[in-house]
């Protein structure tokens, strides 16, 4: 399923946040969005996922979602957004509860999502008993349980420490590629973008406009090979030079709220 983003403008009251964002995310494609703080990345993702309404412009879906997909556009949240009073399995099952499914199928979906995120042994644990990395695995399992077409991820790893982040990112990438799930991945961290994305959309500082779209011509599975190191380093330098000036200006802005 394709996502066609055509956001002409978005503002919060007087504050213009996004302008002229046109992106076509193809089936199974992973698109990273990077840009300085406050440039409107989260806003853009919210608009794409239908939890914010663009001031002007729309987002379209095209094509058929995968079989038994219950929620084509599914979020994975930076702060995990788990219900603390529910166990891991109950959290993962939450999005199924308002769908009519035979209970056998429901349980099978939950078990499958838990297995694919390595959470089977933690099904009965409460969120407070889990580390940050495990909590985000629950967030991922909850997204997988609805068999999404496109995952919308707003800095899903940024609340985690560096080692957990690296470990989880590899698992994550594996899932996306294996299931051919498309992803829009918002991040500050262009190393993550370089590891995951087919294309990187670089936004300017607020109001966010598309500054450049950088394609990464190496398949994700080959990016850890020695041969890829130089190309990726060049792309990394390019991305950094694209956002460095924007970021340093954005960083010095005083927030008026």
């Amino acid at each position, binding site marked *: 399923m394709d996502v066609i983003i055509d956001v002409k403008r978005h503002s919060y009251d007087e504050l213009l946040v996004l302008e002229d964002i046109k992106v076509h995310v193809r089936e199974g494609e992973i698109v990273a969005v990077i840009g300085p703080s406050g440039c409107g990345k989260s806003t853009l993702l919210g608009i794409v996922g*239908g939890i914010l309404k663009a001031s002007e412009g729309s987002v379209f879906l095209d094509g058929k979602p995968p079989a038994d997909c219950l*929620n084509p556009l599914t979020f994975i949240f930076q702060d995990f957004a788990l219900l603390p009073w529910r166990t891991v399995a109950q959290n993962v099952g*939450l999005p199924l509860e*308002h769908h009519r499914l035979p209970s056998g199928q429901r349980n099978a979906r939950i078990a499958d999502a838990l297995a694919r995120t390595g959470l089977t042994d933690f099904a009965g644990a409460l969120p407070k008993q889990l580390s940050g990395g495990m909590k985000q695995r629950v967030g991922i399992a909850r997204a997988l349980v609805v068999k999404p077409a496109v995952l919308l991820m707003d800095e899903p790893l940024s609340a985690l420490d560096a080692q957990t982040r690296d470990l989880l990112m590899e698992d994550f990438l594996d899932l996306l590629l294996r299931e051919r799930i498309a992803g829009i991945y918002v991040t500050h961290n262009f190393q993550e973008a370089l590891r995951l994305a087919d294309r990187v959309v670089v936004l300017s500082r607020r109001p966010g406009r598309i500054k450049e779209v950088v394609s990464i011509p190496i398949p994700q599975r080959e990016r850890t090979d020695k041969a890829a190191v130089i190309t990726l380093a060049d792309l990394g330098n390019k991305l950094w030079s694209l956002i460095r000036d924007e970021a340093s200006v954005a960083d010095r802005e005083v927030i008026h709220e």
Partner: protein
Amino acid sequence: MSEIAASGPSVLPSSGSPQRREVEFRGGGFMAVPQPLYSWVAFAGIIALWQVSISAGWIDPVFLPSPASICIALWQLVVSGDLWIHMSASLSRIGTGWFIGTGLGLAIGVAMGLNSSARAVGMPLVSAIYPVPKIALLPLLILWLGIGETPKVVTIASGVFFPTIIATLAGVDAVPRNLIRMAQSFNMPTSGIIWKIMMPSALPGILSGFRISVSTALILVVAAEMIGAQYGIGAFLLTAGNLMQSDDLMAGVVILSILGLSIGAAITVFERIFLRWR
């Protein structure tokens, strides 16, 4: 070379430097340390001192009865069955009033939390009536509803109703928005959001509201019974006071203390069961 070899990870320099001194403990942030023994010893000490001052004749027992005579008065209340008569009268008033006030308060608090128009209408009314000591309404309620149980129960219900609304409203307002957005991102229907996200999330606030509303109910039942009732702890206290039976009077106070503590403990048990996830 030998210097490097000597500074292995577990080898410390031997003492002898005149500047060497130990780092002192500078305080741990005034952390509260539980000391149950102190509490019991102090409690027992006060009772003992009290008993001694009366046995020795330092205090007039009509003015302040001794712990022993209070115990005897309590015991007589139990064996005569009077305790049960007064307790059941008070408890049934508290129970009825509290349930009515809590039920209405929860419903209206949730409605005000979810619906901006309901909040706009309700908030000024709640703010205006909340600070009024509800016992002041009793004469008015007697005028409207006649004497008997109804005005007492309604007084208690109204005393419970307002703090419950406020606790519920605060609980609903404190529901993390990201959880609601998460639910919406899975197309969860509004009723599901209310029951599965908002209510459990507001529960801690609602339960701590219960603590306040229960003690309000206790105050109001005693006050209402002092104004006009034949049975009830409040009526019993008033009679004992009029007859200068200070041992009965103190026994009534002890009963109220035990009652308040037990209700508080029951709420704590409730919290342990329902808020285990915190």
